C-alpha cells in the first residue's frame, strides 16, 4: 500500500479489519495457507493444473472427507474414533448385501446408516459407562467390528457388476460437466460432502449443540458446571461419526460396486491426520470441519503432485505426507500463537 491511495471509508475499514481479525483467529488460516502454497508450488509440475488432475484430487479426498467430518467432530469434543475404518466396511456390506438381495438402494442406505449409527453408539456407550479413554475403547471395537465383518461377510469380498440408477445419484460422475470440460471427472459424492461439511459447520458454529461440542472438548468441568449434558453430546458425536463412516462405505460401494473386509483400513489415521493438518487440536475444544476438508484435500493434492512429478516410488508419497503433517502442525501453532 502506498500513501497515495485515498483512505477507504471508515465503516468499511472497520468491517475489513474485523474480518481480517476473525479470519486470522480462525483455525483454518494455517491449513488454507499451506494448501495454497502447495498448490502454487505444484502448479509448475506438468499436467498438474488440469481439470483431470484437480478432479482426481477431489475424488481421492471425498470418501476420506466423509470420515474426517465425523472424526473431526469427535476430536473437537475431545474424543477419538479409531473404529471408523471397519464401520465404513460395514456400511458398504449392509448396503451391498441389501442391493444384491434386490432391495431398494435407498432403504439400503437407511439400513446402513442405522447399523453404523448403532456401532457408533456402542463406542459412545462404552466410553461414558466405563470411563475408559476413547482411544482404547475404539481401538478395541476396531478389532471387534472387524471380527463382526468376518462373520457378516462370510470372509468373502462382495462384488456386483450391475449399475443401478441410484448409484449414479449417490456417487456417479457428473456427466454434463465432463462433457463440457474434458477431463472434469467430478462426482456427485463430492457435492454431498460439500453439503455435509456446510451443514455440520453451521451446526458447530451457529447452534447450542455446536457450542456444547466445543465446551465438552475444551473445558469439560466448567461445561458440566453450566449444565451441558456432556454424555449426551458425546453419544451424539459418536453416532454421527459412525454414520459418516457408514455413508462413506455406501458411497464407495455405489462407485466401485465392491466391498471387502480390508475396505476402510487405515482411514482412521488418514482422517485424524486430515483433522490435525486442518487445525484441529488433539486435546479437543478447538477445530474446524472446513479445516478438516482442507486437510484431506491437502493430502490428496500432495499425492497427485508426487505421482505427476513421475518419481514413481511407493514410499515417496507417505514420506511427504509425514513431512506435511508435521509442517502443518508447526504452521498452525505459529499462526495460533500470533493471534
Amino acid at each position: 500500500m502506498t500513501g497515495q491511495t485515498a483512505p477507504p471509508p471508515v465503516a468499511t475499514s472497520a468491517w475489513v479489519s474485523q474480518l481480517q481479525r476473525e479470519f486470522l483467529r480462525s483455525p483454518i488460516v494455517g491449513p488454507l495457507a499451506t494448501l495454497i502454497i502447495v498448490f502454487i508450488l505444484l502448479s509448475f509440475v506438468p499436467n498438474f493444473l488440469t481439470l483431470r488432475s484437480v478432479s482426481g484430487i477431489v475424488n481421492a479426498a471425498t470418501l476420506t472427507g466423509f470420515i474426517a467430518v465425523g472424526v473431526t467432530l469427535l476430536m473437537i469434543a475431545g474424543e477419538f474414533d479409531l473404529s471408523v475404518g471397519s464401520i465404513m466396511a460395514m456400511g458398504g456390506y449392509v448396503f451391498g448385501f441389501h442391493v444384491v438381495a434386490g432391495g431398494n438402494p435407498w432403504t439400503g442406505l437407511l439400513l446402513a446408516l442405522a447399523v453404523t449409527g448403532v456401532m457408533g453408539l456402542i463406542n459412545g456407550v462404552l466410553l461414558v459407562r466405563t470411563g475408559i479413554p476413547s482411544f482404547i475403547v475404539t481401538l478395541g471395537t476396531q478389532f471387534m467390528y472387524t471380527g463382526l465383518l468376518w462373520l457378516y461377510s462370510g470372509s468373502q469380498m462382495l462384488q456386483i457388476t450391475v449399475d443401478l440408477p441410484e448409484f449414479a445419484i449417490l456417487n456417479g460422475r457428473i456427466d454434463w460437466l465432463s462433457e463440457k470440460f474434458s477431463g472434469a471427472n467430478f462426482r456427485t459424492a463430492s457435492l454431498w460432502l460439500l453439503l455435509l461439511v456446510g451443514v455440520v459447520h453451521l451446526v458447530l458454529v451457529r447452534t447450542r449443540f455446536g457450542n456444547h461440542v466445543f465446551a465438552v472438548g475444551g473445558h469439560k468441568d466448567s461445561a458440566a458446571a453450566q449444565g451441558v449434558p456432556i454424555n449426551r453430546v458425546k453419544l451424539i458425536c459418536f453416532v454421527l461419526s459412525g454414520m459418516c463412516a457408514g455413508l462413506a462405505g455406501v458411497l464407495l460401494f455405489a462407485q466401485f460396486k465392491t466391498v471387502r473386509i480390508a475396505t476402510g483400513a487405515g482411514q482412521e489415521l488418514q482422517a485424524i491426520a486430515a483433522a490435525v493438518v486442518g487445525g484441529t487440536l488433539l486435546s479437543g475444544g478447538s477445530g474446524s470441519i472446513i479445516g478438516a476438508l482442507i486437510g484431506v484435500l491437502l493430502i490428496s493434492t500432495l499425492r497427485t503432485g508426487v505421482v505427476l512429478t513421475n518419481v514413481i516410488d511407493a514410499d515417496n508419497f507417505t514420506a511427504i505426507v509425514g513431512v506435511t503433517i508435521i509442517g502443518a502442525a508447526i504452521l498452525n501453532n505459529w499462526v495460533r500463537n500470533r493471534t
Partner: protein
Amino acid sequence: MKSAMEQAASDLNLNLTILGPDKFDLQQVAELIDQAVAAKPDGLAVTVTDPQLFKDKIQRAIDAGIPVVGFNAGNGPEKDGIPYLTYIGQDEYQGGYQAGKRLAAAGGKRGVCINHQVGGTNLDARCKGFADALKEAGLKSEVLGITDDPATSQTTISDYFTANPDVDIALTLGPNGANPFYAFLKEAGLEGKIKHGTFDTSPEINAAIEAGITLFGIDQQPYLQGYGSLATLALVARYGIKPALPVTATGPGFITKENLGFTPNPTRPVKIIAVQHALCAWDAFWCVVEKGINTAAQQMKVNVQVLGPDKFDLQKVAQLIDQAVAAKPDAIMLTYTDPDLFKEPVQRALDAGIPVLAYNAGSGPDKDGIAYLTYLGQDEYQGGYQAGKRLAAAGGKRGVCINHQVGGTNLDARCKGFADALKEAGLKSEVLGITDDPATSQTTISDYFTANPDVDIVLTLGPNGANPFYAYAKEAGLKAGDVKHGTFDISPEIVAKIKEGFTLFAIDQQPFLQGYGGVMMLQLKVRQGISPALPITPTGPGFVDASNVDLVSALSGEYR
C-alpha cells in the same frame, strides 16, 4: 507309455484312441494327426517330433477348437512356434540343474559335465543346468566333450582327470557317456571316490547305483508323460483348467538306491490323508480344493481323508499332521503354511517313510528346507512373467505393474516376472504402488497415466488393483484395445471385462488342480514309483481368457 495311457483312460473314464505308424515314419505321423483332427476329439496329445512337419496339422486342430498337448517329444509351444497348450516331458535344463544340486549337496568340490554330443541342444541344456547349480553352490565346473567311440572317450576322460585331479563331481548324460566313464573309474581305481550322477538308466547304470558308485540315474518318467497328457486334456475339456507353463516337466525323476527295482502295482489300494489349514466348511475357497481332491480320489480309486481345524489355528494343524502320521497312510498331502511349526511333524512323517507333498501353501522343499516331494501351487514369478509375455505379444509399447501391496513378497515376485518379460521383449516397465482405498488408488492411477500417457500395457495383481483401474478406465473413456490389460485372480467384474474384451486375461492359481493334482501325484508315487520332477509344480498361472471364460464362470465356486 501305452499302459500309462490306458490306465489314465480307465481312471478318468476317457474314450482313448492311440494312433501311431507301423514303423518310424514322420510323414505318416503327420497324416495321422490329420486323421485325428477329422475325428473331432475333445483333446489331442501329439509327440511333436518334427515341429516343421507337424506345424500346420497341429494348428488345424487348434483352429478347430481341439485342445492339444505335446508329449515326449517337443520343446514347448514357444520354441516349436505352435500354440499348443504345453509340452509334457523332460525338462532338460531342470534335469541338469537338479542333478547338479544333488551332487553338490553330496559334498564335492569341483564338477565336470561329460557331454557325448556337444552342440546338441538338449544335452547342452543339461550341462548348463548342472553348471548353474554348481555355481549357486559356489563350485566351479566345466564341460568335457567326448565322442561316440567308447575307447577314445575313456582316454579323453582319463586325460582330463589326470590334468584335473581335484574334480570330484561328474555328470554323464546317458549310457553313452556313463559307459566309458565307468571304464575309466575301474581302471583308475576311483570307483566310489567321485560323486557321479547320470541321465537315463541301463543295466550297467543300475548296477552302479546298486553298488553305490553312481548316486542316481535320471529318468524322464515316460509313464507320467502318458498319464499326465490324458489327465491334462481331461481337465481342460471338463473344467477349463489349463496347464500353467509352456513346459510341464515329467522328469527329472531320480532313480536311486532306495527306489531302484520298484515294482509298479497299478491296482494297489492307496490311502492318503490330506491335512489343510482351512476347510470348505468355513472358507469357500477350500470347497474348490476339496472338490479337486474328491474328484481325483473317486476317479483314481484312492481313499482320501481330509483333516483340518474348525477355525484358523496352525497349532491345531500341526497336531493334525502328527495324527495323520500315526494313522500310517500310504502318503500325506498338506498345506505347508508355517515352515517353523510344521517342520518337525513333517519330518516325523518322512522318517516314517511316508511320502509327503505340499499343496496350496509352501515354497518348495529347497526353500522350506525339508525333503517333501514337491510344492503344488501357484508360481508367482512365472505368473507375472507369462502375463508379461502375453501382454507384450498383444502389441503394447510400455508397461506398468499396478501393485496394491508393495513389499508383499508374492506380489513383488509377480511384478518382477512381468518386468523381466517386458525387458526381454525390449519394452520398459515400472511398478505403481496403490493402496487399499479404491478412490485414492483410482486417482493415483489416473495421475500416473497423465504423467505417462505412452503406457499401454497394464498388469493388475488382483481384484483390489483391477477395481480402481476399471474405475479409471471408465472415466478416461478407455475402450477395449486402448490398453492391453491383464490381471491376477477372478472376480465378477473381471469376468465381465474379459467377456467385453477389455481385459485380455485373468490368472488363476487353479485351486481345483491343487487338490486334484496332489491326489494324482501321490497315487502315482505309491503305485508307480513316480516322483514329481521339480521342487515346485505350478498349478498356476492358469489363464482365463475369452476362449474359456464362459466355462470358467459357469463352473465358478465348484471347479474354480
